[in-house]
């Protein structure tokens, strides 16, 4: 019996190991169908949260969940911190990554009202280097339609978006500029920045 179990475990382990070895090379296997599906699902979830009629604080917590499930939070946080991550401990980087996710959900989630009654129409998808660009058209109340591109990769082994570009304006660059300026204001003290990002929530 125990032998049987261990053999099965071994087999499962071997399969998992094979899968792990195989995954990084799957980078280009992400299909445009998966990438547009990711955007459709994320938009549907966000619309659902907005329609739920919960309190703003509850909604923002849920937006953070959507961001964690659909976004490449680790990459976005690392990119925003840029070269300032040099010489920092893993504990500091991990704390920053968490606090940054909360800050992003707050920053963009607070503006959910602009999306009420709005629509995001997927226009198409194309391969760019090692990711897929999903091009959409955002139609919000009282505004001319504008172009929003979602950049989707499968870096963590599942489709995730790692950048959003609104009419040419790139979220990753905007956040790197913002985090850089926030750090400068705090004399480069990452721990102070982490606690401020958390407290902003």
């Amino acid at each position: 019996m125990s032998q049987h179990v261990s053999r099965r475990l071994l087999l499962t382990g071997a399969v998992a190991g094979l899968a792990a070895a195989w995954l990084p090379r799957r980078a280009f296997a992400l299909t445009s169908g998966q990438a547009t599906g990711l955007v459709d699902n994320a938009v549907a979830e966000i619309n659902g949260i907005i329609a739920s009629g919960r309190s703003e604080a509850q909604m923002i917590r849920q937006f953070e969940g959507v961001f964690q499930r659909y976004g490449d939070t680790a990459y976005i946080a690392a990119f925003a911190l840029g070269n300032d991550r040099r010489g920092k401990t893993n504990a500091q980087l991990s704390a920053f990554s968490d606090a940054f996710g909360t800050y992003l959900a707050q920053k963009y989630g607070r503006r959910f009202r602009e999306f009420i009654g709005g629509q995001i129409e997927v226009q198409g998808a194309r391969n760019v280097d090692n990711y897929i660009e999903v091009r959409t058209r955002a139609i919000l109340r009282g505004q001319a339609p504008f172009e929003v591109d979602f950049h989707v990769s499968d870096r963590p082994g599942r489709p995730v978006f790692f950048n959003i570009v609104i009419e040419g304006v790139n979220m990753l660059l905007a956040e790197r500029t913002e985090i850089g300026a926030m750090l400068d204001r705090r004399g480069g003290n990452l721990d102070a920045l982490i606690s401020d990002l958390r407290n902003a929530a």
Partner: protein
Amino acid sequence: MFYRFSLSHLAAALTLAALGACTAPQPGAEFNDPYEETNRAVHNFNKGLDRVALRPAGQAAAALPEGVTQPVQNFADNLSLPGMIINGVLQGDADGAITNFMRLVINTTLGIGGLADIAAEMGLEEESTDFGETLHVWGVPEGAYIELPGLGPSTERDAAGQIVDFALNPLSRLGTTDLARAGTASRAADLVIARGRLSDTIDSVLYESADSYAQSRLIYLQNRRFELGEPGGNGQIGGTGIDPFALDLEGFE
């Protein structure tokens, strides 16, 4: 008449001066911004202007019903079409010029002097353009980033374009004085209404970011390059290569 002539001569001279002085980017620098110190002073001045005048006016406009503000915006937009048509022609963009010409004809007649945007309902969306774009099409480089007092973010090329667009405004040259006045007034109103509509976005950049100057510069340059169809995509600004597989994410995950 003499006044108009001298204004366009001035514009031409200023444009040439601006183009001759178009500052080449410093190799390795993230932005072509040699006037950063002056620009930051102008930025603070503009923020002050926004805080006391434009922002409160925008909030007042945002409280008005859309039935009031939309016709004003349509009217201002319609009066900007002659300039856009000329720029379209100068760029050799026949499609754009024809679309804008059709918009002008349809909205001026069926749209009651431009108050209603009937053309958009018929699928003729505005092909927005300006002399800054014309200069781009003619091969003039972007030049340095500059923030203009009262007008906001620009580049040397776009600033030259704004001067020409202002001076060569076909409305003030060919139209009546009343029409020119109405054009100026509706453009001002359009700006106020737009400030009100985009209130949250503009407030977050100007008043909630840690360095509003750096954010405004980044947003303006990316958005402008996007409009002009310049290679402004991934990693173009500052050579920041964006590659989801290239960073060591140890600690972040």
